[in-house]
């Protein structure tokens, strides 16, 4: 990671409370990134406070469902719909859920 970046590995079940902690500490959401791994996905949530970047990371199996953080960080709805549409990752309770129609791709979940 970058010089002033931090990377913290978390349990997927602690995503929502950890995101809430970040929000209460004054961080804003920068991006959510999914990377394909063998049998699943690696998810990285990046938050910034000033120039400092903190990344939360966890791995999930292919069919695992995760909770949305869009009720904590409003912009998350776009990133969550994006990784759902491109990778097929199932995310529950997205604030604005496009149900697979954010990206009108010729092939369903093209990055899966």
């Amino acid at each position, binding site marked *: *990671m*970058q010089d*002033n*970046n931090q990377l913290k590995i978390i349990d997927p079940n602690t995503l929502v409370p950890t995101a809430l902690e970040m929000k209460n500490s004054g961080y*804003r*959401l*920068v*991006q959510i*990134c999914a*990377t*394909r791994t063998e049998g699943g996905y690696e998810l*990285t949530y*990046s938050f910034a406070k*000033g*120039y400092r*970047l903190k*990344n939360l990371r966890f791995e999930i199996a292919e069919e695992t469902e995760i909770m949305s953080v869009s009720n904590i*960080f*409003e*912009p998350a*709805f*776009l990133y969550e719909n994006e990784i759902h*549409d491109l990778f097929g990752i199932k995310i529950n309770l997205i604030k*604005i859920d*496009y149900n697979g*129609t*954010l*990206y*009108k*791709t010729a092939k369903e979940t*093209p*990055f899966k």
Partner: protein
Amino acid sequence: MSKRSIVPFGPQHPVLPEPIHLDLVLEDEKVVQAVPSIGFVHRGLEKLVEKKDYQEYVYVAERICGICSFMHGMGYCEAVERIMNIEIPDRAKFLRVIWAEMSRIHSHLLWLGLTADAFGFESLFMESWKMREKILDMFEYSTGGRVIFSVNKIGGQRKDMDDDMIKMFVKLFGEMESDLRELTNTFLQDYSVNTRLRDVGFLTKEQAHDLGAVGPMMRASGISLDTRKMGYAAYPEIKFEPVTSNVGDSYARVDVRIKEIFQSIDIIRQAAKKIPAGTVDVPVKGMPDGEFMMRVEQPRGEAVYYVKANGTKFLDRVRVRTPTFANLPALLETLKGCQLADVPILILTIDPCISCTER
């Protein structure tokens, strides 16, 4: 209670040649909610890392967008160079600053023209683009290209500018400055322009922070952040402070971008004075192994390049978070409470680049 109706805006609209769609929920002519739709032309460029090796991917990165093409190439190269611990020559770092700031000036002038066009000030649009044309001529003279330059590579730059060329560019920017001042005075002082921009589309400092706004959109709401201060290329050698405004309306966003044009000219002058002699690239050995998250300040704001490599010539992942994508939630906030007639102007004040968003 007023009657509610939903008006579709886009994906094709006269003020916006690129496809974005908004469902506008109106009470009479007042917008109470907006829901965006994107993804009409998603290109899947991130997926191309599976077919192009990490050196070839520079050409893909710079095709993410035709306006900030140089900066996309630079951001990707800087990320890979950090993974591979490559220290590029100082001259290459300064060249990156000069071409990046020229890109910022041309992008802001392009945007000023489009904004003038959106509120029907055609002569202002033409004057803005006439000036932008001079920057494109400089790009052509120094790189051979007007849109895609292909001067970035892993390990430095493919092309150099000789000292006479740099001096000529500084002189040209000096000559442009008085014309630019006249042009920008019209944007900032003309009655009709002010009427369309002032007190419209407010975004508070807290909203800009919470909604993840970036670039001039964020700085016009009083947040003093600019990722150039994080020190990539030769920016640590350059003296500048982020341009901000505390007002947070559409006028403030124009004001910030105009001041950034003059700041970029100053940065080019500083770089021209400090650029050392020497080579512009170093040989690259081995394959990248590791990951890096690079943050670069593009004309529209912070772009994030995440690169993950596995020790082979093909990367595991390239992910680009573009500034327009980050500014969409803030745009939705500015639309709340505005009149339907102001929607095109407000969309333009985030300086949307759908090409970047549909990477």
